[in-house]
Structure formats: C-alpha cells, structure tokens
C-alpha cells in the first residue's frame, strides 16, 4: 500500500518517456500531476472521502473475474428507439460505430485542443483521482454541437488482469446542444475521469452503469461544468465489485442551470461502494436535486454523501438531498451523510437521510396477494430503486 504513490509516479514517468503522441502542453500537465502526487500520501481512512472505504483494495491485484454475485439484475432504464453510437474503449485504444453523426466529433484524448482542456482541482482527498491525470493512457474527447436524438454509449471493454487502466474522457457540449450519454462498465480494473463541459442552454442526459463481479474495482471522478441554463440529468447504477469509489463534482458557472442526479448503490456480498456528490452553487438561481437509494446485504459497506456548497451571493439557489438506505443483513453497513454549507441568504434547501430495513407491512401486503417472500423482497427492492431513476 505504501508503494502506491511510487507505482503511480513510476507508471507516469514511463509514459512521459515512451509516449511520443503526447503534445508538450499535456506532458507539462502530467508532469505537474506527478510532482503534486509526490507531495501527497496514499488514500486512507484518515481522509474524509475514504473514511468508509477500504483503500487497501486499491493495491489488491485483481483475480479471475467471476460472475456477478448480484441476485437481481439492475433495473432497466427505457431508452427505446433512440439510435446508439457506441464508443468501445479497450487495450488497443477505442473504436466508434460508423453511425456517428457529423455534429459529434470524437478524437483521442491526447488530440484534444488545448483551449478545450479543463484542469481539475485535486488535493489529498482526491489523490486517487489525481493519479489518473498523471497516468491516463486512454480516453476520448467528444465535441457535440447540435441537438440530437442520439445515445452515445461508452463501453469499457478492458481485459481483466492485475493492471489498472487509467482513462480520461472529456465531453464538450456546445451552446444549445442536446444528447444522451451512457457509460457502461462491465469489466476491468478502471480508474476513470470524465469531464463534462456544458455550454449555455445545453442539455445532457447521462447514465452511468457499473455492474461488476466481486473481484473488479472501479474508481470514477466525474466533473460537470454547467453554464447558464444548462441542464444535466444524471442517473447512476453502481452494483457489486470489490471496490467502487465514485466522486461527482458539479460547478454552476452561470445562472438558472439545473442538475438532477439519481443514484442506486447496491452492494450484496463483501462489496465496498462509496458515492460522493459535491455541488458548488457558485452563482444565483441554480437548482440541484440529488437522490440516492442504497441497498447493502451480506458484509458489504456503502458510504453515500451529498454535499452542497452555496457561495456568498448565490441567492435563489434550490437544493434538495434525499438519501434513503436499506440494510438487508446484520453485518452490512451504510454511512449516509447529507451536507449543506450555505453562505447566501435566500436559499431553499431540504435534506434528509434514512436507514432501515425492508418494511414488514409492505412485504406482508405482497405476500397476502400470493407472492412468496423472496419475490416480495425483490419487488420491494426494485420499487425502492425506481425512486432514484430519472
């Protein structure tokens, strides 16, 4: 574990020497990240963001991928009839299906225009995400310039072995543009950073799906920059895995923008899922609405945190945080934390968090109609999940 920083910096240094495709400005960014990494320590329970995650799992070597231990499939989200443009990310780079419309430009992340690149503010809490900036070797830059009836699908198809894959994607959405994005993590050992830059009036419907087997790990950092009147609707379904650690950071950079997020975290065996949302209301009249539904069984552990920061002068901000959790076994643990830090006067804010078991009365209601207890529990869990799906 102590060698994790060394592992990251060694990997990054090797890339800097051997990757001839890196433009000089990006090399400089990576060198900066390596220098910062060397000043930081490895993630541990002393950090707020890792307090309830087993950071030792970052250093574990992956084993054979086993079938998911999940008893039920994730609840499906209807996206019928919308054309899918598929970006497959794998060890050879990436491929794009040949139906990509002309108003969507997809290129390797290394080829992104320097003016489009967004620097991320990383610190000790986000050291595992900073490692991505130093080490990323794959990823794409997507530029969308029109309102489209298209679902852009990122499929992560990396070979499952002992190596982590570091992937960085940046999605730039021009003024008034509109489309859907789906991120599907089905396998691998992935550390990913996704940066979404939404210009004025643009709308993105995003769906992140991670359905992992017991040996797999996923670290994701998702930053959303929202200009005036932009809207991001984001649904996350995080199921299984050994370690899943997700951080979503939202910056309101203009007025009257909307961020809606619904997340389902479902942890069945010895899974460890952390799902953290930071929403920065930097400007006036923005709305954020965060709903989490988490379910833990066996000896699994979930940490769910929604934090909203409202800056001085960011009046007329509207914030809602709704975190509900169900424990299915005596050994499962859930830590649930809504947080508001408000420095403006005129703010409407509501937050709540509950942890409990499945409601006995509801289970009995289903049984009394002829449904056996196992199916009744499955229906109740599905019903609970549906509350978070946008």
């Amino acid at each position, binding site marked *: 574990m102590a060698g994790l920083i060394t592992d990251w910096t060694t990997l990054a240094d090797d890339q800097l020497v051997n990757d001839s495709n890196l433009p000089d400005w990006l090399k400089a960014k990576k060198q900066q990240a390596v220098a910062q990494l060397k000043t930081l320590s490895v993630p541990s329970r002393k950090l707020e963001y890792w307090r309830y995650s087993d950071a030792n799992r970052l250093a574990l070597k992956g084993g054979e991928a086993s079938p998911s231990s999940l008893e039920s499939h994730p609840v499906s989200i209807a996206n019928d009839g919308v054309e899918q443009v598929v970006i497959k990310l794998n060890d050879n780079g990436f491929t794009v299906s040949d139906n990509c419309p002309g108003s969507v430009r997809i290129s390797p992340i290394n080829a992104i225009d320097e003016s489009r690149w967004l620097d991320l503010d990383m610190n000790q809490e986000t050291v595992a995400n900073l490692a991505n900036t130093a080490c990323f070797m794959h990823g794409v830059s997507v530029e969308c310039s029109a309102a489209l009836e298209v679902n852009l699908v990122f499929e992560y198809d990396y070979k499952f072995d002992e190596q982590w894959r570091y992937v960085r994607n940046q999605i730039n959405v021009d003024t008034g543009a509109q489309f859907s994005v789906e991120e599907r993590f089905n396998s691998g050992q992935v550390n990913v950073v996704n940066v979404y830059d939404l210009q004025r009036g643009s709308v993105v419907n995003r769906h992140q799906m991670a359905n992992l087997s017991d040996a797999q790990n996923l670290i994701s950092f998702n930053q959303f920059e929202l200009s005036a009147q932009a809207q991001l609707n984001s649904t996350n379904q995080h199921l299984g895995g050994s370690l899943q650690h997700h951080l979503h950071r939202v910056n309101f950079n203009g007025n009257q923008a909307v961020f809606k997020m619904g997340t389902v975290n479902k942890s069945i065996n010895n899974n460890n899922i952390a799902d953290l949302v930071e929403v920065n209301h930097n400007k006036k009249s923005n709305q954020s609405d965060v709903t989490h539904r988490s379910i833990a069984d066996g000896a699994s552990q979930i940490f769910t945190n929604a934090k909203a920061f409202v800056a001085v002068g960011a009046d007329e901000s509207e914030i809602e945080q709704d975190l509900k959790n169900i424990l299915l076994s005596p050994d499962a643990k859930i830590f649930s934390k809504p947080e508001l830090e408000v420095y403006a006067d005129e703010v409407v804010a509501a937050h709540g968090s509950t942890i409990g078991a499945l409601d006995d009365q509801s289970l009995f209601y*289903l049984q009394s*109609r002829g*449904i056996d207890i196992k199916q009744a529990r499955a229906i109740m869990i599905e019903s609970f999940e549906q509350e978070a799906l946008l």
Partner: protein
Amino acid sequence: MLKIDNVYASAGDKEILKGLSLEVKSGEVHAIMGPNGAGKSTLGNLLAGMPYVQSQRGEVEYMGKDLLELEPEERAAEGVFLAFQYPVEIPGVNNMYFLRTALNAQRKYRGEEPMDSAQFLRMVKQKIKDMNMRDDLLKRPVNVGFSGGEKKRNEVFQMGVLEPKLAILDETDSGLDIDALKIVADGVNQLRAPDRSFIIITHYQRLLDYIKPDFVHVLADGKIVKSGPKELALELEEQGYGWLNN
C-alpha cells in the same frame, strides 16, 4: 369453509383475541362489528397470516386445512384475501405488473398455467369495466398518490381479479364518501357467489345497507359476544355497544 375454534392470539406482546369462535359456510356473508380495540382487525390479520399476529391456542380450519400452518402467500393461493384497512404504497411497481405477478404466483401454487400478458390485459380490462372503475388505475404505481377512496377501490378491484374464496374486508368503508361506498359495495356484490364467502369488518351500519349480510357478530374484548341476523346491526347503530355489557 372456515371454522375458527376458541382462538387466542396476540399482536406483539398484547393478547387481543381471547377465545374467539366463528363458523362461515360457503356463500355466506358475515359482518363483524364492535368497539375500538375489540380485535376486529387482529382477526383479519390472523386469518391472512400477518407475522406480527401470533396465535396462542385454538384452531382455524379452512377448506379442510389448518390455516395457521400456511404461509401468507399459501393462504392467498388457497383463496384467502384480505382487503387492508390501510393499503400500503409500492412506488415504482404498477398495478398491472403487481396483479399479474400475484395472479400467476397463485396459479403456479395451484399447478395452473401462467396467464400471458395479452390474456391478462383482456381480463383486467373487462373486470375494471364491470366494476365501474377507471382504467388509469392499472397504469399507476400500487396505491401511490391514491386518495383514501381510490385505495379502497383498488383493494376491491384486486379482489375481483384474484377471485378469492374467502374475502375479508377490514373497514373497507372507512374514509369513503357515499359514491365511493356504492362503488365498493357494488364491486363486492358482483363477486357474491355460492362458493365465495365474505367477512366484513366494519364500524358502521351504513355499509350493510349496500352489502346485505347473512349474519352480524359483535366482537368485544377478543371474542364474539353476540350474533344475530342483519337487524342486529341496526340495533347497534341505535344503541351503541354499551347495552351488551348489561
């Protein structure tokens, strides 16, 4: 059909039923009335198999089987239906899906073929029309956002679809306006049949203006203290329950 013999039962650590006996034959409608806390809902919950209600002694024989030995879902598949006093909300699960799941679970238990979507849709559409209810009920999540009356109507509609042999209505009339009361009562009356029995738990005589019972029983302090014809309900309406203590 149903023979309850000297049953004692508790809800949590409180003994509620104290030697209750009742016999219901096929096709009969029995009304159970009584003061608050007498044990009326506990009786309904005991018959439907609510885990919180535990029998201490006594026997319940239903269609030749020991009812208390069966799981709640087995009782349902055997034809026992409880219309809840407070139907629960199940967000994200629409009525149609819920009812088809329930019906096919019962059919599976009875060794019957499952009903496919098309057959089921035809059947429920006909039922909802026959019962004079609105078909948007089918698409909505179970009881979510329903008014009190809609919830009770939904209970009766479920009863119509599942076609039980023994239906227990636990204060289905409470919270209903006159129009809703008529719809609910019509739904029940349509289901009356020689091989189907009803136990109607109610506080008020007015429901019995629309659903004519064969027998009225007064439940007080955990047992039936008086039984009689439907006129007994009128007597209770006029005089309350106090005179029974004399």
